[in-house]
């Protein structure tokens, strides 16, 4: 009985600590809000931004009352330090929740007006389009929209691309001669490619391509191509990374993917036997974006716009184009990525990225032909 009592006490102590931890966690949020409210009341000022500005950050034009929150579908390894640099440059604090692009978009939809997020940063125009459709994004200021190549932003002005990524055919350099590679992605449905191609039909950027194919070439061409690919025994992977991995070990010879995955494999293994084949002028060379939108429910949109401006600044754009981990296309005219062909060379199809929103139709087509089951 004695040991039981001791154990009971121990359990009680642990439970108490747990409760305390929980209580502290709970108190954090309300604590910041009343403070901010008190500041406003004391100042009796109609413009709280000015008020804080006088106190702490004289050099910055726009400041924030508290941190701004970003929901980022982009990986911390790629963008984390950019947020750090932004904090250092402006004094505006940034809190970032990293996750999956689609899941974070779904979260914002569930949160509605109460969302703690100020900015959504996604890897896919479809997700941004979905938030725009639901009326959850606010219009971006003219100066931001004017900075960006028009093809890379929402025509309604509610989101902007921050970088572009182009669809390519990645191939195993040991198994495929460059002369063999096709000029069009549509050729992969030909018999000579039987059993040699990898794809990721459940992947967002692949589906964006299928949507573009439906929009530009028509439903029939899209269906015929998908059926041809399946008849050809296209090998399914769960995402782009897995495709490139599969090409590397020779499981497939070529794969339909985005251009930038390759660079990460090369960083870990310089002998990795895969290269990108660009598809100039072809529907298969579609350019998709990673991009940002500011939430309509944000209580500090000005600070949020400032972060969007920062990502579009020449330095950051230049960095995205040159950093070995990303090597993406800058979206601001005049900034180049030396390792990549220029956009003129790639000559991507003219697709309204907002059109990529008809994703239910694409999903249905993919299910009907049996590309996804």
């Amino acid at each position, binding site marked *: 009985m004695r040991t039981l009592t001791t154990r009971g006490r121990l359990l009680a102590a642990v439970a108490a600590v747990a409760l305390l931890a*929980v209580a502290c966690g709970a108190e954090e949020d309300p604590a910041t809000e009343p403070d901010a409210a008190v500041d406003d009341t004391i100042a009796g000022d109609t413009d709280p931004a000015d008020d804080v500005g006088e106190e702490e950050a004289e050099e910055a034009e726009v400041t924030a009352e508290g941190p701004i929150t970003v929901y980022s579908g982009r990986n911390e390894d790629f963008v984390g330090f950019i947020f750090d640099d932004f904090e250092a440059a402006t004094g505006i604090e940034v*809190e970032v929740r*990293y996750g999956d692009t689609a899941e974070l978009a779904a979260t914002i939809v569930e949160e509605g007006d109460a969302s703690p997020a100020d900015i959504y940063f996604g890897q896919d125009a479809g997700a941004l389009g979905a938030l725009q459709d639901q009326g959850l994004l606010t219009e971006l200021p003219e100066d931001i929209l004017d900075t960006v190549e028009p093809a890379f932003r929402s025509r309604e002005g509610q989101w902007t691309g921050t970088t572009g990524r182009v669809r390519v055919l990645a191939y195993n350099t040991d198994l495929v001669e460059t002369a063999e590679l096709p000029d069009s992605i549509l050729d992969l449905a030909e018999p000579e490619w039987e059993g040699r191609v990898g794809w990721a039909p459940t992947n967002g950027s692949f589906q964006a391509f299928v949507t573009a194919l439906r929009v530009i070439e028509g439903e029939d061409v899209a269906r015929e191509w998908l059926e041809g690919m399946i008849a050809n025994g296209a090998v399914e992977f769960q995402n782009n990374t897995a495709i490139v991995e599969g090409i590397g070990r020779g499981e497939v010879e070529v794969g339909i993917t985005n251009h930038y995955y390759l660079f990460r494999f090369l960083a870990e293994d310089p002998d990795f036997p895969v290269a990108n084949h660009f598809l100039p002028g072809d529907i298969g060379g579609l350019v998709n974006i990673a991009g940002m939108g500011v939430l309509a429910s944000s209580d500090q949109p000005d600070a949020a716009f400032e972060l969007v401006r920062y990502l579009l600044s020449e330095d950051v754009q230049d960095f995205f184009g040159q950093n070995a981990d990303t090597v993406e296309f800058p979206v601001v005219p005049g900034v180049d990525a030396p390792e990549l062909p220029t956009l003129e060379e790639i000559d991507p199809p003219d697709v309204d990225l907002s059109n990529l929103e008809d994703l239910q139709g694409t999903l249905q087509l993919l299910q009907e032909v049996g590309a996804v089951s």
Partner: protein
Amino acid sequence: MSIEAPTTSDQLTRQLPDGPRRPRVGSRRVAGVHPAIWVPALLVAAAMLLPALYLLVATADLPLARIVEIATDEQTLRLAGRTLLLGTSVTLACLVLGVPLAWLTVRSDLPARRFFAIATGLPLVIPTFVGAFALVAAFAPGGLVQEWLGVLPPSPYGFWGAFVALTLFSFPYVLITVQAGLRGIDPSLEEASRLLGNGPVRTFFKVTLPQLRASAAAGGLLVMLYVFSDFGAVSILRYSTFTRGLFLQYRSAFDRSPAALLGLLLVGMTIVVIVFEARVARDRGGQFGARGPTRAAPAVPLRAWRWPAAALCVLVLLVGLVTPVTVIVYWLVRGIAAGEQLNVALGPAWRSILSAGLGALAAVAAALPVAIWSSRSSSRIARLVERASFTGYALPGIVVALALVFFGIRLATPLYQTLAMLVFAYVVLFLPQAVGAIRTSLLQVNPNVEAASRVLGSDRLATLRRVTLPLARRGALAGGALVFLTALKELPATLLLAPTGFDTLPTRVWSATEEAFYTRASIPALLLILLGSVPLAVAMIRERRER
């Protein structure tokens, strides 16, 4: 010559003096259960139903015609069929693998028995998305096995790949619950059987196995419903199940309503499964001995089977643990050779321990009233409450996470995206593991023990405190360890509900593997496996000491 155990129990019951609320075996009455049990149990059940409620709300956006269209769609039916096929076969395989392994590691003179008792449970600590990934890296065409050994192994993709991976990474659910069940059995019945001239095999099938029915069914249920909810393994190994279809709706179409409808159908399938399990288990697991185990059972000699049995354990460990760990270590070594910078990830490790530890404590606290009520009362409501706890467990993590986003931000605004919220999510997701373990341990104790306490003058609350709760301790420990393990590797709810910036080991592993930074994934993945093995080891060692 067969042992008429229920009769024995009935006789025992009859020998007790008639109290005012004499519990009878097989039809224990609700009247004996104190409100301190059923009130919290009802509250817990209400919380457990939040995900289902959310699914109803989200599905309500759909017109009826579309609901009928999706529900009767050939695609939907196919997914349901595939999910049931995979779930059933994985569950059967886990039982076939888990029950004998449990017996070998608890009751036999297997070489290095104590080591195997812990080690065979370890595949559970490997998140399926990591395990499946490693299996692909090893067994896919051109993978490490082919590269190193020069032979092309069987393909890891499709039904068989998913079957093998899910069996390997979830059979410990059966193993651990059955091990606990075996330890709770009074060996005197088996000895009686042997004295009556039955051989060890016949004794196992006629006497031991029937007593393990409840724990095996409980473990099997955890496996089956886990398969329903799994996304990592089936997506990487390319086998479409309901959960994969549901993810596709969220990820491809950004449309929550069709996804929610699929979720509701999954809840329906879950109900069918738990009703079936209840029929199989039927509370026959315990109540054979009046006091639970009085002493350790002597080890059964395996004789000629000793080394083949050890070989089986080694094989399971090779595929379920050594393969994934080897692949992860390979990533680490390759990255170091390429000059990658390494990050030790102590911060995420601490946050993983904190959140999973609190999750385990909270789950055990919430599970106690549910388990006590459902094991000490024949009330239908008690059964319903216990069964309701499975809703969150069978649903994909993303659905539970979004449900708690939906309700959390509206009903518990100050708690939204705090540690408290995350812990609550873990309880909703993993409660059945704790309930099952505690309930099984209580069922193994004849309620006459509590009746005796009442007869001897303790009131219901004192009996609860001094008899029932101490009896539930073994189950609470095992259940807490299980919840800790699964919460430790939880991903979707952690990403959405943790405090901002609260990165854990699995979120680190996920974000690195998503982008093919395998070296960066390797250290948190190894830490995760290491941390996961601690509670298993502690639980086992304590078990041993207590005996």
